[in-house]
């Protein structure tokens, strides 16, 4: 016990000591220029082993340099080398400023390094301090600039910050989500977007367009956190206030924002992505990326590439394509043919089944589609339904019925009185890729007939509907889109039943019943 308490005491002592030390030193630096060498000790703490010390020192640095900015004690303009400091004939004041400016640069470097620290608190503190510096630099620029030509913003500092934020080795998603609060500010957002673009260009160019999952994940996290406001009038929230002609500042214009946003995304999407990233992007594409772009049609390359990949990615790409076709008047050749070829048994098992059916429902809602096409879709869906689980069937069967309702010419699929009583092979060719060639209109939906003997009562009931002429009213499928097997199970479990029928012949053994199958193939021993 004793040693531990000792160490505790020691810890506390050291804690107190470092706090006191830093506090006194910062106080002295700010009070008197004589003690400016103490800044070295404070900066030293930034490289400490202990997280708490680093954080404390970071805050101290933030305080000191902000104060210095405020006083104008940092050298403005091109910084001479430190070695030249003595040689040149400068006033002591100037020398002090140059010295402090060098310390500031050191501090910034260390803070940037600390953004790659293991401890999140350190990262967060460094990030906050740096953003504070960005703000201070914005107010008190360190460069002599022609005010008329340029608007003041510490682009360079922000660029290096973003570079460190988008690490190629480490997952920075936590820090990026912390960074989001700064992205609320319009000017920061604007300059971050442009620096991200540069960064992507540089990093991907360096890596020769190969996939870098960690980096791309970081970029994705950052990009998905960027939200361009919907209205230009809302752009009032700036980190750095511009004195001169604020209305012409690019960071204050929605159009510029949108353009920067668009360029950033397009550049990001231009490079090869891992498939999980494809899915992530496609999931958010239609609601958080496309509306914020100035010209969403530029996404067509990306979307058609994704659509051609196949599988779940294709299904997801449908959503973006749909918006392009629907809202931006995009002409996509062989869209339906491709959609047709997308239909395979896997569509019933993917996570995005509800979204897919929702979209397919929309795509096929037009009454101007040719009958052969609709018939091909219907027949294909029917064929696929033979492998579908009950939850999918509960979507599929009303959907097929709806399609036939919308296109009365497809009614021959369930009602062909002319050729009645004449048995024939199924003329439908499932291997055919082209819906025009698959002879779907000559076929009948025997599959649905088969499903009338499905084990689940609801499915069987839904399949029974094709026995009668369909009603005029379309069935709503939106409420069954998200139905899960367990929910379906609960329907039966929760239903109130008056009587529970029992098996009347009681069993005597586990594997002995009138209709034993398990016992034929397996035995207890």
């Amino acid at each position, binding site marked *: 016990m004793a040693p531990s308490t000792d160490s505790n005491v020691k810890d506390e002592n050291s804690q107190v000591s470092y706090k006191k030390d830093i506090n006194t030193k910062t106080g002295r630096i700010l009070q008197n220029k004589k003690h400016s060498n103490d800044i070295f000790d404070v900066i030293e703490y930034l490289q400490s082993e202990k997280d708490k010390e680093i954080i404390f020192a970071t805050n101290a640095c933030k305080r000191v340099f902000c104060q210095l900015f405020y006083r104008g004690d940092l050298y403005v303009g091109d910084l001479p080398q430190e070695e030249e400091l003595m040689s040149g004939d400068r006033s002591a004041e100037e020398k002090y400023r140059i010295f402090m400016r060098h310390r500031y640069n050191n501090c910034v470097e260390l803070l940037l390094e600390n953004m790659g620290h293991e401890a999140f608190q350190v990262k967060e503190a460094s990030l906050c301090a740096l953003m504070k510096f960005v703000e201070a630099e914005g107010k008190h620029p360190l460069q002599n600039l022609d005010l008329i030509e340029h608007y003041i913003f510490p682009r360079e500092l922000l660029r290096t910050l973003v570079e460190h934020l988008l690490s190629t080795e480490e997952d920075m998603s936590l820090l990026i989500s912390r960074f989001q609060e700064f992205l609320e500010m319009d000017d920061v957002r604007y300059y971050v977007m442009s620096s991200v673009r540069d960064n992507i260009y540089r990093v991907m160019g360096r890596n020769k367009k190969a996939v870098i999952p960690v980096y791309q994940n970081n970029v994705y996290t950052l990009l998905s956190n960027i939200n361009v406001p919907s209205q230009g009038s809302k752009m009032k929230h700036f980190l750095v206030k511009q004195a001169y002609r604020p209305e012409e500042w690019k960071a204050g214009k929605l159009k510029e924002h949108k353009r920067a946003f668009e360029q950033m995304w397009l550049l990001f999407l231009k490079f090869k992505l891992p498939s999980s990233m494809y899915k992530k992007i496609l999931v958010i594409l239609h609601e958080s990326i496309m509306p914020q772009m100035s010209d969403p049609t530029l996404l067509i390359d990306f979307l058609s590439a994704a659509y051609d990949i196949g599988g779940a990615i294709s299904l997801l790409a449908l959503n973006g394509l749909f918006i392009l076709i629907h809202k931006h008047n995009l002409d996509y050749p062989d869209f339906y043919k491709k959609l047709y070829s997308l239909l395979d*048994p896997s569509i019933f*098992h993917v996570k995005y089944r509800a979204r897919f059916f929702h979209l397919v429902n929309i795509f096929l809602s037009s009454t101007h589609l040719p009958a052969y096409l609709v018939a091909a879709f219907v027949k294909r869906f029917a*064929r696929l339904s*033979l*492998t*579908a*689980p009950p939850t999918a069937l509960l979507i599929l069967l009303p959907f097929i019925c709806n399609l036939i309702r919308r296109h009365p010419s497809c009614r021959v*699929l*369930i*009602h*062909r009185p002319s*050729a*009645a*009583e*004449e*048995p*024939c*092979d*199924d003329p439908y060719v*499932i291997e055919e890729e082209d819906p025009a060639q698959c002879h779907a209109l000559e076929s*009948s*939906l025997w599959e649905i*007939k*088969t*499903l009338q*003997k*499905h*084990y*689940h*009562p609801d499915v069987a009931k839904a399949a029974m509907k094709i*026995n*009668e*002429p369909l009603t005029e009213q379309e069935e709503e499928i939106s409420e069954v889109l998200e139905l899960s097997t*367990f929910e*379906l*199970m*609960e329907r*039966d*479990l929760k239903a109130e*039943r008056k*009587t*529970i*029928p*029992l098996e009347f012949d*009681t*069993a*005597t*053994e*586990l*594997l002995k*019943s009138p*209709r*034993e*199958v*398990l016992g*034929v*193939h397996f*035995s*207890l*021993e």
Partner: protein
Amino acid sequence: MMRKQQTFSRGLSDKVRKSKAAPEIQKNPFEVKINRKKFDVLGRKSKHDVGLPGVSRSRAIQKRKDTLLKEFRLKDKNNTFIDRRFGEYDSKLTPEEKILQRFTLERQRTQDRKDMYNLNEEEELTHYGQSLAEMEKMTDVIDSDSDSEEKGLLSAELTATHFGGGGGLLRKKSAGDEEEEHKPRSRQELIEELIFKSKQEKRERQTQKEEAQELTEKLDQEWKSIQNLLAHKTPKAERTDETDKPKLDQYDMMVRELGFEMKAQPSEKLKSAEELAREERQRLQTLEADRLKRMMGDAEEDAVQTNTHVSADDMNDGFILDGDDRKTLAYKDGKWNIEGEEEEKEDEDGDEEGGEEEDEDDEDDAEGEDDEEEEGEDDEEDDADEDHCDLQSDEGSEDEDGQGAEEEQLCAEEPPAVSEEQKKAAQEAARAELPYTFPAPESYSDLKQLLQGHGSEQQRLILDRTLKCNHPSLSAGNKAKLQKLFGFLLEYVGDLATQNPPDLRTVSALIPQICGLCQMFPEAACKAVQTLLSDSGHSMEETLEVKGRAPMPDLDMLVLLKITALLFPSSDFRHPVTTPAFLFLSQALTRCAVVSLEDVCKGLVLCCLALEYVSLSQRIFPELLNFLLGLLHLTVSDKHNMGTAVCVCVCVCVCVCVSVSQVFLNQCRISILLCVDLIITLLCDLHREILDAIPEKPSQHAPLVFKKKKPIPLKLFTPKIVQILDYGKKRGNTKEEKERERLKHKYKREFKGALREIRKDTRFLAREKLSDVMSRDAERKRKVKELYGSLATQEGEWKALKRKNRK
């Protein structure tokens, strides 16, 4: 005119009231009013063709006179209620005093009466002439004659004394009692004596009555005992003996006669389930007592006896049972083909690195064995299965060896069951033997304690006895207990299946009990199975959401699904249990990842279960086909050696599946053929078999047509002829409308009638008032006239006097 008529009618009405011979009036043409009919309808009788307005009017007037007029007369003449009881308005008296005073007054009032001959001190309250005190008793039935005696207080003697005068009595007394002749008694004395006598008489009567009652009770009791005897069916011989005994008591004779009469009833009626259960329990209780006695080690002979006895009692599963013996037994029992894999799985868990290698080794083994098998002979189904099983058991053989060794050690440690000391042996045996009664387990752990450490047969016996001891008809709480027991049992079965090695033999042994319980409480059973299904379904769904893939359900779920199939009909279109079970099967077959041979096996069990579920109802189960296809693809695409055995199983299942589910699927057929083609070198026979099973040509279908519907007939313009059942102006088509119309009509009529009545009432009142006024006026006129007359005479007299004076 009016008045005349009134008087006329009044007179007539009086006549009518007086003379009940109405026909005279009815015949009187001046009285009768004939209601003219518009149409003469044949066969219709109307009540109201003739009316007697005068009669009815007089009746109405009379009624008004009786009611309305009386009310009118009494109008504004209120009565006041005056309480004349003593001291009611005296505020000085307290309620107690008041009551006391009243009581004394009352007593005084009664005392005043001249009822000196009433012999009872207290006045008897009566109701309809019967004493209230007597009526209150009610319990003892009093004979009618005694009643009359009681009633007639005045005996002949008394009446004689009372009414015949004192002389008669004196005379009689002197004649009766010679001993006391000297004393001339006063009347007072005589009366006292009389009173005394009558009291004595009364007391005697009372005692007599009591005795009679006692006797009847005694008789009743005796009869009861005899009845008991009769209920027990005594052997006939004994009974005859009894009757032979010469007991010619009248009473006994009577009783026996009655007894013989009772024999007509069935002495041994059909026992109800309750009684049977009670008897069973009693039997078990006695056996339990016996067992306890033996456990105490009282007598060796008893032990021997019980030995035989027990064998008679279906306890042939070994008298000496020690835990060790059972263990080995259980181990040999619980050997399913999956179990081996579970062990394997555990091994894998133990050392994950080595697991893979082992797996591959196993697969190699499998290949080797299968090759031999295929070369040796090409028996497809059972051999393949057995082969598979063998395989598994081989895999688990190392474990078996190890365990076996341990058990041997245990065996050695245990003292031998057959010892020299007979007594000790008997004790042991008694301890090992099962008790005969069991309390119903209140919790799952109770049940576990109850059943654990027994062989499968014994467990079944224990359960059986528990059920018998706690039959719901035996006590009210048993039903709930047994309902809970079902849930515990299912849980226990699940435990048995998950333990290592799974004890499926026991599960199988417990099935009849589970079935029995289920038959007893279908609702509770349904609830229990439903909760288990929904729990596991929910957990699977959750793992799917979290991990994206779920493991195959464990053996306990498989067993539960199997039991579900045994308990509930899976062929129902919709069933609260089997439909969710179907969904669970579907979920397991579609969503669960197949990563090991064990999973494959579980999947195949699920397939078999699914097949079993739909075998009667011939339904389609797409997930089953999907799963089998997936397995086939897996076997083909993977290393060839991985699962020939599995493949065989699959093919078997496919065969069965194709043959059973007659629903034909093109796609399925093609895929199977493709796969089977690929492994043709190994399985050509099987291939042929499958080809045989599948028809060569795809079957042809007729194009779909809607169900033929009855054509809707054209609208025709011929008049619609409807039979009218009720004539008259009854509007409204539906029943409700008609009813509404009817009620409306009725209301209207009633309203009119009421209005008319009210008018008549007012008219009547007005008339009465008028007549009152008239009569008052007439009176006044008369009086005025009288006064005038008297005044005139006075004046005349005065004038006459004056004239006289003048003269």
